């Protein structure tokens, strides 16, 4: 009896209980090599003094974590603060700015396609190209923006070169670039709300504000939550546009976490320090990622 059960494992056909692994194996091998093992290695590296160009790796316990929070230049703490500044500015803009755009485009009767294309178009452009385009527009001498500001009587500004304006400029560019995704998600959420709800409300004498507050907003809540969480996660991982637009300057006023980690790991080759920064970032993100996870679980049952 036991023997025949074991013999099944030797079959070279679909009856072998392990047959599923034939399909799974290519992915599983890649997953182990490039995701599973690296996660464990990353923990290990963060506990080592691991410089690519210096002496061989040396175990130092939690010293990397201690160091990044206490070293005299405080660059990591500073970059955390800057990332939070970016998130505080960008997340509400993304969450509510794109909601208002979506509501407007949903309500308008003509040219819907044109409006959609306009707001989504920047999204397909790569981060270097959008940064170059905006560096050119922000240019203190020949920039379009300064020219038109001058026309209405404002003095020329070096938007990316001043600590007060650089982060705002980055947020504005990021919004221009990334509004398309939340906009489209909202739009499809709005289109899923049955028109009959609004008609019924109107018969009962509800005005536009009531319809928005009592129908649109509650029914859109899962979408709103999804976009918020996603934008928070994205904001804490911001890198490309900051790296190209300001390089973290002026005076490190826009240096963000991922950029600081990139510089530590790939300019100074301090792998241990960079890995410990990645884990600090993970600790910040995990709360939001778990919320996102729950949303995915429930999404399967989301019907109006």
């Amino acid at each position: 009896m036991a023997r025949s059960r074991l013999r099944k494992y030797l079959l070279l056909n679909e009856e072998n209980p392990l047959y599923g692994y034939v399909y799974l194996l290519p992915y599983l091998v890649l997953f182990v090599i490039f995701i599973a093992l690296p996660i464990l290695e990353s923990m290990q590296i963060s506990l080592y003094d691991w410089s690519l160009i210096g002496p061989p790796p040396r175990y130092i316990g939690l010293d990397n974590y201690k160091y990044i929070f206490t070293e005299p230049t405080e660059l990591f703490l500073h970059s955390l603060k800057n990332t939070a500044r970016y998130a505080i500015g960008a997340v509400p803009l993304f969450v509510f700015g794109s909601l208002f755009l979506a509501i407007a485009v949903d309500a308008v009767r003509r040219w819907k396609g044109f409006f959609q294309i306009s707001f989504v178009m920047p999204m397909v452009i790569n981060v270097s190209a959008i940064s170059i385009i905006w560096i050119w527009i922000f240019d203190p001498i020949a920039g379009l923006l300064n020219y038109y500001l001058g026309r209405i009587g404002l003095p020329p500004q070096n938007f990316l070169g001043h600590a007060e304006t650089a982060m705002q400029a980055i947020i504005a560019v990021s919004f221009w670039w990334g509004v398309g995704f939340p906009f489209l998600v909202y739009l499809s959420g709005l289109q899923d709300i049955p028109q009959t709800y609004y008609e019924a409300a109107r018969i009962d004498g509800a005005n536009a504000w009531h319809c928005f507050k009592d129908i649109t907003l509650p029914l859109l809540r899962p979408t709103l939550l999804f976009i918020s969480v996603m934008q928070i996660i994205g904001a804490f991982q911001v890198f490309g546009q900051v790296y190209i637009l300001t390089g973290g300057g002026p005076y490190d006023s826009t240096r963000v976490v991922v950029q600081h980690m990139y510089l530590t790991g790939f300019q100074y080759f301090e792998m241990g320090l960079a890995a410990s920064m990645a884990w600090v970032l993970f600790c910040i993100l995990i709360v939001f990622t778990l919320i996102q996870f729950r949303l995915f679980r429930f999404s399967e049952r989301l019907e109006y």
Partner: protein
Amino acid sequence: MPWVRRNLKQIVLMVALTILAVFWLLPILWAVSTSLKPNPHTYRHPPRWIPEVATLENFREVFFTIRTTPIWRAYYNSLIVAICTTFLVLVVSSLAAYALARLDFPGRNVVFAIIVSSLLIPGQITLIPVFLRLHRWGWLNSYKALIVPALAGPFAVFLLRQFMLSVPRDLEDAARIDGCSRFRIFYTIVLPLIKPALTTLAIFTFFGSWNDFMWPLIVMTRRDMMTLPVALQAYLAAFNYMIEAGYILAASVAATLPPAVFFLIFRRYIIKGIALSGLKF
């Protein structure tokens, strides 16, 4: 005027949206305009939207420049990487998703749980170990360094598995009773049924690979291996903004136009795909 009064809300909405939409498109149009100007004209005041003299000289220079990665080369690199990545992600992930959704084997639920929980880990965590591994293997500055690690992403498997579960099983059961092999069921029944998910995944993977910045910046340091975003970023250092803005903008426009045209053509699929990814599979 009763018509205006009746449609006042629509008119206000139209005007507001049109102004916003124009603002959204102007930066791109300004880049196109600058890219067509001869370099000495780019810094002229007042700015001119229509170039006094239009030339394609800037594009000729950046496509074949010897000062940094020529744009044709960056295109070639980006295309190879994006096409291979997309194709292989579809193959590897759909096979794995099929096993996880439809086949019964010991350890399936554990494997799936591990794959799903890896979605919690942000990409920055694996960055350094994967870099060190590729460095050891001598894979840096090769296409495989961009393609192979991208195939391990858990999201594609997760997406396709969820989609496969939502497809009715009846057809597959009928085919099995008729003696159809598992692989033929997968290839001729399941894959066609999940085509919408495959299309979405293909578009996302292609754009993701095409626009990826950080990873290629780390592993592609040799000029002739740079993909478009990395090469473009190097243009800012290789050319002088004060006197060669036309070149830099031409490079950006050249990199922008193909995805923009692609977007206009496949707009429906892309928009549907994004809607699909937002909470609804």
